[in-house]
């Protein structure tokens, strides 16, 4: 075997890469999906069950999310779940394009990933701005 010339570039390797937005939206898609499934689903169930069970049961739900510490739990969990929803939704749509064979060019792949991040944050801010203005 010929001796290696250290001036030559190494071939791509699992441990050698540079972070990019496409990798961020990829892992965020999984993280937000798991978060909504294990945190969002029980909260949705609690909300629906509390509405169905009556005013007394609903009062407990309302107390935890809207009254404890000035509603801090509701704001933190609500903001987290809406951000998770909009990021997952945006990247989900991006994945439908990927399924159709589009957006695999480096530039478009990166731009669409950045668009997903921008959409997730913007939609969350606008949603809570609307809640604040309308209520």
């Amino acid at each position, binding site marked *: 075997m010929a001796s290696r010339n250290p001036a030559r570039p190494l071939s791509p390797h699992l441990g050698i890469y540079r972070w990019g937005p496409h990798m961020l939206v990829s892992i965020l898609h*999984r993280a937000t*999906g*798991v978060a*909504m*499934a294990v945190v969002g*689903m*029980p909260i*949705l*169930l609690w*909300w*629906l*069950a*509390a*509405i*169905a069970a*009556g*005013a007394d049961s*609903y*009062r407990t739900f*309302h107390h935890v999310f*809207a009254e404890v510490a000035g509603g801090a739990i509701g704001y933190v969990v609500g903001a987290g779940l*809406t951000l998770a*929803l909009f990021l997952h*939704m945006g990247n*989900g*749509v991006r*994945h*439908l394009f990927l*399924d159709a064979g589009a957006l695999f060019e480096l530039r478009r792949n990166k731009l669409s990933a950045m668009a997903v991040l921008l959409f997730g944050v913007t939609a969350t801010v606008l*949603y809570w701005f*609307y*809640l604040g203005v*309308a*209520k």
Partner: protein
Amino acid sequence: MRTAIREVRGLGAAKEGTHHWWNQRLTAGSNLLLMLWFVVVVARMPAYDHATAHATFHSAWRAIPLFLLVASVFYHLRLGLQVVIEDYQHNESRVVALVLLNFYTVAGLAIALFSIAKIAFGA
């Protein structure tokens, strides 16, 4: 659980290889429509007290889409968590986690659909 090869020769593929993949995409599409509807309905609720919440989903116009939303979202999350479990769990713990996942989803579905029905049909 294994089948003798002489019984499967010539039968070809099971033709169900894309079942999980396709249903995840199908529910992705229905989730997109139903969740957009849901966040608009929640945002437009005039208040978040019990009477308002009950009146909102007492209407068939909102009880039926909510019914569809729960069915679509819970099936989607069951398919998605299955992939996560299969990526990180192996051997016996994988089987246990997949069984628990089915219990989790079906129990959640029962609670949600019962609650929606009670809100819709209740006084």
